[in-house]
């Protein structure tokens, strides 16, 4: 019989104290099917495609390779956190401007990958960006415009930061 656990997660700033999950439920399934945040997608369930990438305490991780119970008490951010009021953030706008998405299925994973990466490394060169973009699979774009979008967003963020200082 499947064991049930009561767990608590903070997702996009909201605390969920009353999540009843099976021990075998992966984080991505709990995010999607219990919390109802379907922006995070499932592409392979073995950690290669990266469609399920979310931020766990700020670091990009594969939500298909984490049991929800392992994330007990921790802070999760999904694609839905990037535009809480519906207005796209600068990274999302850069993806649109550079046509960094076609079907859009892999896109939330790339966005969260890039958010986590840029937070740690705001000043990457194109080669470093490309290496990180290689973490996830996209079947539509050929990746170039994803690299373009992240590069452009990083540049804009640096300029913005420079201005405000």
């Amino acid at each position: 019989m499947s064991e049930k656990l009561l767990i608590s997660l903070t997702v996009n700033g909201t605390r969920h104290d009353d999540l009843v999950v099976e021990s075998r439920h992966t984080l991505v399934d709990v995010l999607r099917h219990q919390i109802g945040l379907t922006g995070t997608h499932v592409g392979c369930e073995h950690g290669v495609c990266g469609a399920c990438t979310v931020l766990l305490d700020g670091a990009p991780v594969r939500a298909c390779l984490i049991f929800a119970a392992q994330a007990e008490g921790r802070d999760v951010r999904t694609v839905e956190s990037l535009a809480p009021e519906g207005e796209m953030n600068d990274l999302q706008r850069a993806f649109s401007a550079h046509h960094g998405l076609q079907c859009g299925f892999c896109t939330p994973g790339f966005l969260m990958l890039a958010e986590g990466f840029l937070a740690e490394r705001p000043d990457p060169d194109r080669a470093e960006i490309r290496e990180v973009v290689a973490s996830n699979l996209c079947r539509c774009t050929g990746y170039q415009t994803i690299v373009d979008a992240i590069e452009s967003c990083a540049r804009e963020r640096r300029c913005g930061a420079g201005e405000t200082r």
Partner: protein
Amino acid sequence: MKPASFTYHRARDVTGAVGLLAELGEDAKFIAGGQSLVAMMNFRLARPAHLVDLTGLSRELAYVRRAGDALRIGALATHHEVETAPAERLGPGFGVLSEAMRWLGHLPIRTRGTIGGSLAHGDATAEWCLLAVLLGAEIVVVGLDGRRVIPAEEFFHGFFSTALDPAELIVEVVFPRPAPHAALTEFAERSGDFATVAAAVTLDVQRATPCDGAPVGGGVRGGRVVLGGVAPAPLRIPEAEAVLAGGGTFAECAEAAASAIDPPSDANGSADYRRALTRTLVVRACEEAMAR
């Protein structure tokens, strides 16, 4: 691709974790980052009845620190924590560890996967397994009978099999002395994949010999050569090391390595191809190690 049912347990400390696993018996497994285990469970290729989650031990076991000459890494330190460890903490002698991390999967794998988990999994191409053998690491494990230290060279027994007893937990890996001239390099058809062949080299370089203008291999008095992907476990190649000790060239060292191995043939490459890669990668690793 959903895992079979299991019972989840949270470990609070090392002693408790080990005791619990022993109590739960053979169908119980530790889970740390889970980057290999969860994938296998999703395929139902692994189906432990119990998982003992070590996440709660992170405060205790996720560290990277110098202790005299040695570098001590807590078993729950993630690959990414090593990759981004400040240079002053690693010192010049352990740069090979952080630089080797770029070969290990991709960023979102490295943020979760741990050194202890990687060693316990014992993949023959895994970077940590090679590095441990290369640098003569001591793998500190705790079991019901207490603590013991397993030299890395005695740790890997074969195909995904190690010297760990079922209820033993890796708690720390000690790299006893700096390796200023060490490098790890790999080849895989696709970036981030398990290596077809991985080569790690540490050179014993005569300090008086400057790198510039020195003949290839010049100043090398010996070294260690470890290969991944050519045998069921990471493999030291004494024949290649003898060439280094005898003042041979890197190419001769690589040739000796290629001749010494009996690699498998599989979808990633034939034995011949792996030998050819060995020739290339050993030279490459030697050159990179020399250039440090």
